[in-house]
């Protein structure tokens, strides 16, 4: 990965172990919540309650409150699901992939990236259930002994989804938590109030930094990292197969699984950058999250954007080269249909704009970074909704062509889900060390050795 570009150490030379720990831990333990945080907290709390209302109304009225219709039976719910899950990929990737590839600069970002992953994955997992016509029956996807003596239908990509996502959520939680344990011990030992010390004490399960513990911890953590990579790839491949394993024009494409995985990393990394910028500001982590980190991540985003461009063109080419009527109609609809403007917007966000990262200046300018990565995530959401709209609204039979029009509840649910995500993240940064302190210090130790 492009992280290898970082010859020089990203950590401030001459920093001490305690100093770095202070940088990370003090915002949580010493400093009070700032005004911006409190405002953000209040707003997102309201949005979370809003999500509750959306769901309540959904269960009272039925999925008909959304814009879905007979040909376009899927809508925002599925798009949101794919989008959130995509975002929920970078974290584990950064941790695992960069760990395996010995990209030690990951230390500064992996913790909150993992948290992001966890929250995003959980929210993503919410949508397929909400989208069901009879959500209270979702557990029929689980193979369990029942008086009906019937089983899930294993050939369905949704069953794969269910398996993949539940695995992924459990895995992400454990991976995140196990990385957190030593830091929780640190918090326990730094905390002033007795309550906090008890809380962190219980959470850290009595971690005492024993060499034995470290030894086992290292073995487990690296093994999990090794498992994480194929898992992440499998999860979004399966999501890709939700569409690819069909025979609808614009869906039935072998490129979908890899294309979805790349898309996921792309949007995920974009989100990490966005959050990194905010965290750096909010928690004053300038020391540990340096321009070099952004530079590296921007390069990855750029690579993702190029990969997306390739995926799109492949899609167009195969569609055109296949020459099947429905496929051609679908292609024509992409570029000239009712959704064409959105489609062009999507291309701009995902392919055109990220090209600014060829410029070093842009890679290191936080404002640019922030705006571009936000645009990328908007673009990626548009991509997901368009995959659904374009195919389902213009299927094989012209007689069943019908467009999708979003309703208030479509938008409300989407926005409130973003609210919930932010809410969880805000809580996270107030309770947990947003950066892996033991990793930082380990990195510091290594740099000292390298210098020595």
């Amino acid at each position: 990965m492009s992280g290898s570009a970082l010859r020089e150490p990203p950590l401030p030379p001459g920093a001490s172990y305690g100093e770095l720990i202070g940088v990370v831990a003090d915002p949580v333990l010493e400093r009070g919540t700032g005004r911006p945080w409190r405002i953000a907290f209040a707003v997102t709390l309201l949005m979370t309650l809003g999500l509750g209302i959306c769901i309540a109304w959904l269960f009272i009225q039925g999925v008909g409150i959304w814009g879905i219709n007979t040909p376009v039976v899927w809508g925002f719910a599925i798009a949101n699901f794919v989008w959130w899950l995509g975002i929920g990929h970078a974290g584990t990737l950064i941790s695992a992939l960069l760990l395996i590839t010995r990209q030690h600069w990951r230390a500064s970002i992996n913790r909150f990236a993992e948290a992001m992953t966890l929250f995003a994955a959980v929210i993503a997992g919410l949508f397929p259930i909400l989208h069901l016509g009879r959500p209270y029956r979702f557990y029929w996807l689980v193979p369990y002994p029942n008086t009906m003596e019937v089983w899930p239908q294993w050939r369905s990509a949704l069953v794969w989804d269910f398996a993949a996502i539940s695995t992924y959520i459990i895995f992400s939680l454990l991976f995140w938590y196990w990385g957190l344990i030593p830091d929780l011990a640190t918090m326990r030992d730094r905390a002033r109030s007795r309550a906090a010390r008890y809380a962190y004490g219980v959470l850290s399960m009595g971690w005492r930094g024993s060499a034995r513990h470290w030894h086992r911890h290292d073995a487990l953590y690296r093994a999990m990292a090794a498992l994480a990579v194929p898992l992440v790839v499998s999860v979004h491949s399966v999501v890709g197969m939700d569409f690819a394993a069909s025979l609808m024009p614009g869906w039935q494409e072998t490129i979908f699984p890899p294309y979805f995985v790349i898309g996921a990393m792309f949007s995920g990394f974009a989100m990490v950058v966005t959050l990194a910028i905010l965290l750096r500001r909010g928690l004053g982590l300038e020391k540990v999250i340096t321009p070099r980190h952004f530079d590296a991540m921007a390069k990855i985003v750029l690579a993702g954007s190029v990969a997306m461009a390739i995926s799109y063109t492949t899609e167009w080419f195969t569609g055109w080269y296949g020459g099947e009527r429905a496929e051609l109609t679908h292609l024509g609809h992409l570029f000239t249909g009712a959704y064409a403007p959105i489609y062009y917007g999507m291309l701009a966000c995902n392919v055109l704009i990220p090209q600014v990262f060829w410029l070093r200046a842009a890679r290191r300018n936080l404002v640019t970074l922030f705006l571009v990565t936000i645009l990328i995530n908007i673009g990626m959401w548009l991509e997901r909704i368009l995959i659904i709209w374009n195919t389902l609204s213009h299927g094989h039979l012209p007689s069943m062509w019908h467009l999708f029009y979003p309703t208030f509840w479509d938008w409300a649910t989407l926005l409130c889900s973003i609210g919930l995500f932010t809410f969880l993240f805000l809580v996270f940064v107030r309770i947990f060390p947003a950066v892996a302190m033991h990793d930082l210090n380990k990195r510091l130790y290594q740099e000292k050795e390298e210098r020595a």
Partner: protein
Amino acid sequence: MSLPCLLLAEFRDPETLLDAARRVREAGFKGLDAHTPFPVEGLAEALGFRPTRIRPAMLVGGLLSGAFAYWLQWYSAVLDYPINSGGRPLHSWPVFLVPTFEATVLGATLTGIVAFLISTGLPRLHHPAFAARGFERASQDRFFLSVADPHVDAARLAALLDGLGPLSLREVRGE
């Protein structure tokens, strides 16, 4: 089950800790351990830990749960209630592999977690080491060597560590 006696030597940096570890081990002390804020490479060897069996356990666990997942799919789709689904074969092995893979990963992970807890004895909220004053820095910027050997007392340890200049040397008494 707290040890009758626990000796803790505190150091400023990992290197010294490593030397100390080697020395006490050569001296044939038992019950050696160290407490550090981050994993120090070579420490495990220095203290003479045997390689852990977590990963083999994960492999076995993963394979078992994967096998179970595949069997379950085969049993339910072929044996228990065979249903013609879109003219696909009852034993659609290629698709059965997907849930199988996920199950393997999950199984391996959970096994690993359990193995970790067992092999480390965590959670363990109460431990003599915590009683040592200043031990809280073991999770921050101090490096402790701990000896739990009834035949060793503070004096012998101090003598042995002569020259490495431990910041402090303390012993924890259980009753």
